[in-house]
């Protein structure tokens, strides 16, 4: 495999990681902590959406993120011809 090919693969991977980490931070540090006051108008079962994100929502999003990343990367591996054979 050429150096250029592997650079493209790595760049695509880094882009994916960046976006995933933005979401990761948004649901936990964002919705769960810092942005909670902004979400306080949205009521969820006796409290607000920020509380839900801090105790349930962030965990669910983390799960979705990891599976999404694994699926995308395994596809990316094949597209760039760097998957295990």
């Amino acid at each position, binding site marked *: *495999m050429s150096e250029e090919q*592997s650079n493209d*693969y*790595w760049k695509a*991977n880094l882009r994916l*990681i960046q976006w*995933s*980490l933005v979401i*990761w931070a948004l649901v*936990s*540090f964002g919705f*769960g*902590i*810092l942005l*909670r006051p902004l979400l306080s108008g949205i009521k*969820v*079962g*006796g*409290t*607000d959406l920020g*509380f*839900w994100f*801090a*105790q*349930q929502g*962030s*965990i*669910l999003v*983390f*799960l979705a*993120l*990891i*599976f999404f*990343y*694994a699926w995308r*990367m*395994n596809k990316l*591996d094949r597209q760039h*011809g*760097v*998957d*295990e*054979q």
Partner: protein
Amino acid sequence: MMDQFTINLLFVGASFALYIGIAIWARAGTTSEFYAAGRGIHPVTNGMATAADWMSAASFISMAGLIAFVGYDNSTYLMGWTGGYVLLALLLAPYLRKFGKYTVSEFIGDRFYSPTARLVAVICLIVASVTYVIGQMTGVGVAFGRFLEVSNTTGLLIGAAVVFAYAVFGGMKGVTYTQVAQYVVLILAYTIPAVFISLQLTGNPIPGLGLFGDHTASGEPLLAKLDQIVRDLGFAEYTVHHGDTFNMVLFTLSLMIGTAGLPHVIMRFFTVPKVSDARWSAGWALVFIALLYLTAPAVGAMARLNITDLMWPNGTDGQAVSLEQIENEPQYDWMATWQKTGLLGWEDKNGDGRIQYYNDASPAMEEKAAANGWAGNELTNFNRDILVLANPEIANLPGWVVGLVAAGGLAAALSTAAGLLLAISSAVSHDLIKGAINPSISERGELLSARIAMAVAIAVATYLGLNPPGFAAQTVALAFGLAAASIFPALMMGIFSTKINNHGAVAGMVAGLLVTVVYIFLHKGWFFIPGTASFDDADPLLFTVKSTSFGAIGAAINFAVAYLVAGMTKETPQEIKELVRSVRIPRGAAAAQSH
């Protein structure tokens, strides 16, 4: 009818027989099997074992109690200990699997082409792991103390002996299958009582949904009801943010980074067949972890509600529970059993024959206390670490549920203690002795030194576990801070930056570890010895940063120092740049061994 003690013994005994049976069946033979289980483990199996390894006394025994008595502000544990898996899956696991060695420090030693880097990594791993084991021993003491109905100290000593015997038995291979069994025991033990309690309080069988549902007895939302009754007693409202936001963010970040820097978790990803499996494995691990973590906040909130109801059976406006009720009514039996461990205590200060439980530090309660002749909070001691284990008794659930929870708590503490002891012993025998001191050591000698290292680690942890620097989950949080400040940055830079050279990595790790260790010791006492602390977490040295939250700052220092030093010293050699390039690409990973 069997008494509770016999039921507990039966459940704990049966679960132990199961684990030991599996350990004998899958006994480790070669060194390769001892460390990495022959790289032949399916991602789902591996995920389950990782979950058991990961969810320790801190998650099982301690965490819900910390949430119960603080509320929203302790959501940090939930986000921190799950969010770390995202970092692990995206930033570390697949690359370390591709690299294909046994231990974390081997990677650091090879990537930074420096035996010194490897040695420093080993020291970082040992410091973090031993701190972690101290937290486990605290939990083991609580669990054994309760189920054998002895004092906390006796429980701890018995527990230490069991953990040692157990960890010496087999290596990773034995441990992997044992841990699958332990996962099943611990998740059933955690969720079954939670389902019962959620049904009792909200009618919803899923605790995580019940938490946001309506409280059947009052018709109000459960969390609104809880806010109201704790407010009535002068405590901080459950769902409201009270603490410092900056510290909360830092603490969550420290736990996340630390998760991705702990050797016993990372080691797990060396054992999957393929690089792509390492990515899935992290996801499966989090699935199995999430089952407990989505339940924990419900356990905490519902237990807080139940405890308050028991202490105020006539409502927070009525009369408090009487001593007579505590002695005679069956739903108060748990109080007498837990009193024996020394972790629960009450005192009728005003001599009115009743136990008033309220926040006597709250100015709002002064008037009410004076009017009613209360002389301070009379539920004088409620150790947070007993909440989960006492929970089924508090909710008056059947005896077999109580026995199951005892078995689950022990499974959680034991599986993690065993995984950590394995990480410590491999660090000492494989990296320290074979890697640095005596490279010509025989396989036999290596295994022997691994076992001696385990024994020493457990002795130190037991000694410090007698006077722990905090509740189990808090001590464990310190270990995460140490891992966050030392190991995670080195691993991440090793993969994502070819610029960082040997000197940069060593300087970064040393700086991160030292600063964090000193900050922790200044607040928790030197080597955790009581009475030697100069500061208190209530009024920390640096702004509002508690010692448990410092790991994130330590990590930032590690990154900064590494970049600075690498910029001033000789560039990374070409062959190392090639190594980094190959680690980034899945193709060419060493084949998995079957077993």
